[in-house]
C-alpha cells in the first residue's frame, strides 16, 4: 500500500542550555491538526517517547548470521591441510612450508597495503548507514489531538509491536492553541537524540507546528514529499493489533518491579530451545505467577494480586518485545496487563500519572504462516447496517471520544449495534479503543480510507477458512498431547458436501510442524505454499477448545 505525505520542512528540536523546543511537522495534506504547549512532566515524557522510539525501530525477526567469511576461511584451511598431508608424503613439506611462509608474508603485506582502502570503505558505508537511517522508519508515527489528551501511535518494523503514548493535558502547561484531529508527523533518528536532552530544569516547548498547514505559494520545494510503500502485511498487523484492543480481555495489574523482574530474567538468560513462551497463571485472589519457559522459571508477583473471578492460564510468545518497557520502570506507577488468550495479542499499559503508555503485542513476533491464524481479528463482529454505522461515527466525531454506553444513549440505539459499528470502524483504522479510559476515539490512520476488503485476509485460503468457521462446518474430533509439548489435532471439515479429513501437529510454540489433509490443494502443494484452508479452519476451531 502506498502512503503519500508532504511535510513542510523537517521536525526539529532546538535545544540550548536553558530550553528545548520540540517541533513536529505534520502532514500538510491532511486536515489541519495542531497543538502548542509547554511540557510539565518532562522526565516522564522523555522516557515514554524514548520507549515509543524503541518500538518504532524494533525488529526482532530472526536474522541468520552471515557466515560467508567464515566459510571462505574454513575452505581455505581445508585446502591448506590437504596440501600439507600430500606434501609430507612426497617429502617436500619443508619447501611447501617456506613457500607458505613467503605467501603468508605477501598476504600480510598486501592486506597492510589494502588497509587504508578497507578503512575508507568502511567509513563510507557507515556514512551511508547514518544518512539512510531514516529510511528504516516504515510509517512515521501518528499523532492525534483530542479535547482531553494528545496521543502518539506507532507500529514496529517487524509488524508485531504497537505503541501508543497518551498524554493528558495535565502533562502540559500554557496550552496555547490546538485543533483536534489526526496527522502523521515527520520523524527521524536525530529527533530521538534530541529527546534525550529534555530536563526538568529546561523550559520545554512542545508543538505540532500550526504553520505546517500554511499555504506555500512561492517555493514548491518547501515541501518534503515522502512516499512510503508499506507491505500489506504491516498494515494488516497494525489493524489486527489495534482492533484486538476492543475485544474482552483478562486484565490485572503488575507492580513496576514485576516488569523489572521479567526483563531481568530475559536479560540474563538466553533461550536456546523451544518453547519460548511466557505463561501467566492467574488464580482469583492469589498473586500473579509468571512462568518463563523453557527454564520453567517462576516469577511470583506478591504485590500484584489477580482480582478476576475465574482462574486462567494464558501463554504468550514474543516476550523479548517487553524489553521496550525497560525505560518506563522507574517512572511507572503500575502496569496493567490485558490478555486476550493463548497465542493472541496482549497489551501492557504503563500508568505514568498523567501519561499512559500502551504496548500492544501481536501473538508472535514473526507472523509467518506456520503461526498465522489471527485473521478473524478483522472479521465483522456484529452486523450493522451502513446507515447506523454512519450515524454512530458522526456521533463519535462530535466529541472525538465517547464510551459506547453514552453513545448508545445519545443516539438512542442498542448498545450492541453501537459496538458493532464501532468495531467495524476500529478494524478499518478509523477509530481506536482506548483501553486506558475505556472509550472509543476517532483516529483516521490514513488520509484515504484503507481498502479493508483487500487487507482482511492474507490470501483466499484464509477467507475460505473463515467461511468454514462461520458456517460451523468444522468438527474437532480429537486433541492429543505428544512429546515435547506438541499437540496433535484431528478433525473433519464439511466442504461442498464432502468431508475433508484434517490432522496436524503444533509444537510447544504453536508452530505447525506436520500436517495432513485430504484436499486437492494439500496433495499438490503439501505445506510449501502454506497450510490449506482446512488446516487453517481446524486450527482456529481448535484454539478455542
Amino acid at each position, binding site marked *: 500500500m502506498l502512503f503519500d505525505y508532504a511535510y513542510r520542512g523537517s521536525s526539529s528540536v532546538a*535545544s*540550548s*542550555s536553558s530550553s528545548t523546543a520540540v517541533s513536529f511537522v505534520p502532514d500538510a495534506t491532511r486536515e489541519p491538526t495542531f497543538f502548542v504547549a509547554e511540557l510539565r512532566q518532562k*522526565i516522564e515524557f*522523555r522516557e515514554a517517547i524514548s520507549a515509543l522510539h524503541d518500538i518504532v525501530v524494533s525488529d526482532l525477526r530472526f536474522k541468520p548470521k552471515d557466515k560467508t567469511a567464515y566459510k571462505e576461511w574454513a575452505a581455505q584451511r581445508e585446502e591448506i591441510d590437504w596440501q600439507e598431508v600430500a606434501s609430507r608424503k612426497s617429502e617436500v613439506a619443508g619447501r611447501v612450508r617456506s613457500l607458505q611462509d613467503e605467501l603468508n608474508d605477501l598476504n600480510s603485506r598486501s592486506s597492510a597495503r589494502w588497509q587504508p582502502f578497507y578503512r575508507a570503505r568502511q567509513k563510507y558505508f557507515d556514512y551511508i548507514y547514518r544518512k539512510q537511517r531514516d529510511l528504516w522508519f516504515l510509517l512515521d508515527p501518528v499523532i492525534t489531538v483530542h479535547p482531553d489528551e494528545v496521543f502518539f501511535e506507532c507500529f514496529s518494523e517487524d509488524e508485531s509491536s504497537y505503541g501508543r503514548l497518551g498524554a493528558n493535558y495535565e502533562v502540559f502547561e500554557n496550552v496555547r492553541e490546538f485543533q483536534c484531529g489526526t496527522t502523521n508527523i515527520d520523524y527521524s533518528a536525530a529527533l530521538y537524540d534530541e529527546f534525550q536532552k529534555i530536563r*526538568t*530544569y529546561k523550559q520545554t516547548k512542545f508543538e505540532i507546528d500550526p504553520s505546517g498547514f500554511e499555504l506555500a505559494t512561492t517555493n514548491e520545494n518547501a515541501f518534503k514529499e515522502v512516499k512510503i510503500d508499506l507491505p500489506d502485511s504491516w498494515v494488516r498487523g497494525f489493524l489486527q493489533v489495534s482492533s484486538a484492543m476492543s475485544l474482552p480481555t483478562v486484565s490485572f495489574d503488575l507492580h513496576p*518491579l514485576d516488569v523489572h*523482574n521479567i526483563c531481568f530474567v530475559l536479560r540474563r538468560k538466553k533461550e536456546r530451545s523451544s518453547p519460548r513462551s511466557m505463561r501467566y497463571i492467574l488464580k482469583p485472589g492469589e498473586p500473579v505467577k509468571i512462568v518463563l519457559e523453557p527454564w520453567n522459571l517462576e516469577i511470583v508477583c506478591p504485590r500484584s494480586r489477580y482480582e478476576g473471578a475465574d482462574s486462567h492460564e494464558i501463554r504468550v510468545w514474543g516476550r523479548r518485545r517487553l524489553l521496550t518497557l525497560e525505560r518506563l520502570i522507574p517512572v511507572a506507577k503500575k502496569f496493567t496487563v490485558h490478555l486476550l488468550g493463548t497465542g493472541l495479542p496482549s497489551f501492557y499499559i504503563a500508568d505514568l500519572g498523567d501519561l499512559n503508555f500502551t504496548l500492544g503485542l501481536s501473538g508472535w513476533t514473526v507472523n509467518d504462516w506456520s503461526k498465522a491464524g489471527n485473521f478473524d481479528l478483522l472479521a465483522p463482529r456484529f452486523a450493522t447496517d451502513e446507515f447506523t454505522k454512519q450515524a454512530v461515527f458522526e456521533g463519535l466525531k462530535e466529541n472525538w471520544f465517547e464510551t459506547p454506553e453514552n453513545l448508545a444513549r445519545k443516539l438512542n440505539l442498542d448498545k450492541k449495534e453501537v459496538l458493532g459499528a464501532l468495531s467495524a470502524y476500529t478494524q478499518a483504522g478509523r477509530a481506536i479503543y482506548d483501553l486506558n479510559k475505556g472509550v472509543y476515539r476517532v483516529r483516521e490512520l490514513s488520509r484515504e480510507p484503507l481498502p479493508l476488503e483487500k487487507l482482511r485476509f492474507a490470501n483466499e485460503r484464509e477467507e475460505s477458512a473463515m467461511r468454514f468457521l462461520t458456517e460451523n462446518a468444522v468438527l474437532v474430533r480429537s486433541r492429543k498431547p505428544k512429546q515435547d509439548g506438541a499437540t496433535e489435532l484431528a478433525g473433519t471439515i464439511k466442504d461442498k458436501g464432502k468431508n475433508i479429513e484434517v490432522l496436524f501437529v503444533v509444537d510447544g510454540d504453536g508452530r505447525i510442524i506436520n500436517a495432513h489433509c485430504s484436499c486437492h490443494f494439500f496433495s499438490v502443494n503439501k505445506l510449501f505454499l502454506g497450510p490449506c484452508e482446512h488446516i487453517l479452519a481446524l486450527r482456529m476451531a481448535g484454539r478455542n477448545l
Partner: protein
Amino acid sequence: MPENLQKFAKLGASISFETALREEIANQKRGAFNILSQIYEIDNEAARPALLKLLREIPFKPRYFKAVRQIFKASEYRRDAEVFGIIAKRFETESAGFSASSYWDSMYLQDEDGKWRTVKKSAELAKEDSRIAYSDVTKDYFRRRTWRTLRRLGEIGDADFVKMATGALLAFSDADARETRTSTIYDYYHTGRWDWQNPKITHIYWDRFSPYLLFNHILYENSPRYEQKTGSRGFRIRGNYKAGDPPPTVREEAFPKLWEAQPVGLLHLLSESECQPVHEFAVKALRNCREFVVNLDIQAVLMLLNRPYEITNQFGFELAAARFDALDPNIELAVAVAICNNSEARAQAFRWIEASRELFAKNDSAMLKLLTANHQDTRGFAANLLQTTNYSQAEAQNLIALLISNLLAFDETKQEIAADLSGAIFLSFGKELRTLNLAIVNDLLSHSTVEVQILGGNILVNHETSAENLPNELIDSLINSKFEQIRGLGIKLFGQLPDENLLRRESAILSFLTHELADVHHAIRPIVSRLAEKYPQFKENLVAAIFIELLQTEKTEGVHARLLETLHALSDWTRFADFETAKLLIKTESPGANEIGGLVFKDRSDEWRDEFTIEEIIDFTNHEILSIRQSSWQIAENIVEKLRGEVSLLIRALDAKWSDSREFWRTFFRTYLTEKELAPEILVAICDSVNDETQKFGRDLLLHYFRSENGVEYLIKLSEHPSAAMQFFATGYLETFAADAPERLEKLAPYFVRVLSLVNRARASKDRVLQFLEREALKSEKAALVAARILARQAATIAIGDKAAMIETMLKIRRAFPEIELPVKIKQTEVRANVV
C-alpha cells in the same frame, strides 16, 4: 518453341530472354521439360546465360527434373564442361525427392481434390506427369555417374578430361565447405559375441569438402590423406592427417599427366576458382610445368598476384620476382605485388619501390592503388612514401584532386582505408591544403564517414581563410556534429576567432562550458582560461554566469563537477561572489554548487564575519560537504568575540554530525573559552549530549572548571541524565554534595529510583547509591523516610544481591526508626524446645 522466346533468342538480348523464359516456365502446366531441353539445343549467346542461371536454381522436382536429366546427358555428350559442372555439383548438394526403397513400393500422395491416397511408386514414376522425381537411388546413381564419365575420359587419355574436370571444379567454391565433423562408431560385437559393456569405438573424421564425391575424386584420387571406402558416401580422412594440417607435398589428383599436358586448364582454375583446395591443387600442379610457367606473360602473373588466395599470391610473387628487373622496374608489377595478400611478397615489393621511389611516387595511379590497398602495411608504406617525396605545385594538386575524389567515393565499409588515406593526405600536403577550394572542404565535411569529415575539419582549422571569415553556420555545424572529434575541431576553430570576436560571443562560450558532453567542455576550457586571465570583465561575467548555472538543477550529471574544475583553474574567482549568492549555492541540492559556496565562504569569511548567525554556523558545521564545514570553522575563528557571548547556542556545534567538526569545536572550546563563558549550566549542557565523545569532553571540562559552590547544581542537574555513564559520574558527587541534606535527598529520589531500576546493569552505580542511602537513612528520620520509600518500591526485585542489601538497610531503618512504615515483617527466630 513459343514465338516471343524465338524473337528474343534471335535478337540476342540475354536479359529480356531470361525474363521471357521464366514467364513461360511459370505459365506451363506440365513443367519445363520440353522448353529447357530445346533451349539447350539452341545454346546461343542469348539463351545460354539464361539457361545457366536457371540451371543453378531450378528445383530438382517433378516438373523440372526430366529436363535436368536430359540437359545433363546432353552436356556429357557435347563435353560442355560448364553445364556439366553446374549440374554435377547440384547432384551432390540437392536432397533426394523421395526414398525408393526396394521392398516398400507404396507411398502417400495428395490428389488434386486435396485427398491423400496411397500410390505405387513404380506406377507413378511410369506416368508421363509423374508427381515424384529424383529418388535417393537416382541421386546416388548420378553422383557415381559424374565421376564415371570423367574417369573414362581420363583412362583413354582424352584431352577433354581437363576441360570437363575444370568445369566441375569451378562449380565449387569456399562457400560449399562444411564444418569438419567426427562420426563415432560403437562395435559391440568385436570380440565375437555381444558385449555391450566394452564396445570397440572407432572414429571417422570428415574434412570440410568430404561430402562431395566428384570434387574429391578429381582432387584426391591419389591422395595419402583422403579415401573413399566402399559403400561410403564421402571421402573420409585417412591415416594421421588432421583437418586443417598443411597438405602433403605429393601430387594427389587423378590423372596428373593429363593436367600437365594442359597447364592452361590449371591457370584457368587459378584465375576463376573461389575455392582454397582447388588453388592448392592447381599451384602444386603448375609448379611441375616449368616450361609453361617460365613463358607466362606478365598479365597472368598480375592475375596470380591479385587473387585473394595467399598460396596463389606466393606463387605469383615467385614468378614476379624472377621477372622483375630492378634497373627497369615494371611499375604495374611492383604495385600488384605490393597490394597482394602475401605479406612476404609485399615486403619485397616495398624494397623494389624503395629502390626507385621517385618513379613510383610520381605515378599517380600507382600511388592511388598503394594508398587504398587492403593491407594496412601497404597503406602505411605508401603514406610514408607520399610524405617523404617532394611534389611540385602542379603534381601535388593533381594528386590531391585524384586522392580526394577517390576518398569522397568511399562508403562506411572502407572506414579504415578512408582514415589512413585522410591522414596521409593531411600530413603530406599541409601547405597545399591551406589553399584548397572551400567547396571541396564542404564536400568532405558533409561526407557520411567521420574519418573523411575529420579531414575536412582539419583542413578548415589550418586553412588560410581565417576563422572569422568563415561563415558562423559552418563552425556551428561542426560543433553540433554527432562525432566527438569533429566537435573538438569545431571548438578549435571557434577558439581561433579573434579575442574581441570571442568576447562578443560570451553566451556561446558559456553554453559550450555547460554543454552536456564532456568533450565540448574540455575543448573550450583552455580558451576560457586564456580569455579570463586576459580580460577581467570577461572573468567577472563568466564567474557570475557559472554561479547562475550552478544554482539551477543539473541538466546532465557531471556538468556541475566540470564547472567546478573550471572555477578551480581560475585564480581569485571567489571575490566575484556576493554573500546572498554564496548562501543560495549552499542551499541548492547539487553537491558541486554546495562546494563552491563553501569555498567562497572560506575565502571571504573575514570580510563577511558579521553577516553570519550562530544557527548558520551550526548548519554549516553539520553540512556533509567538507568545504562548507571548513568555512564554518574559518568563520568561527574570525568571530571568537561574538561567539563568546552566545555559548549557550554554540553547544550544539559540539554534537555535529561529523567527527572533524566535533574535533574542531572541542579545540575551539578549549582554546577560546574561559571559565567566564563556561558557566555551570553550559558545562552541564555539554554533558547532556548523547554523543559519548562530547559527554566525555563535557566531564573533562567539568572536572577542570569545578568549583565546589556549584557542586549541588551539578549533582542535581546531571542526575537527570538518561545515560548510565553520566549517572555513574553523578554518584561521585553524592557523598560531597548530598550528604546530611534530607531535602536534597528528596529531590534526588527519582534519580535513585532510576539507577536502581536499571535492568542487569550499572552494578557500581547501584552499590554506591545503596550504600549512600543506608548511610543517610541512619542519620535522620527525614532522610530515613525518603530512603524507606525508595527501598520499599525497589525491594521487590529478584536480583538477589540488591534485594538482600535493601532488606538489610530496611531492617536497620526499622531498628533506628521503628515508626516508619516498611514492607518488612520481622519474624522471631524459632527457638526449638530441645535446643539448649
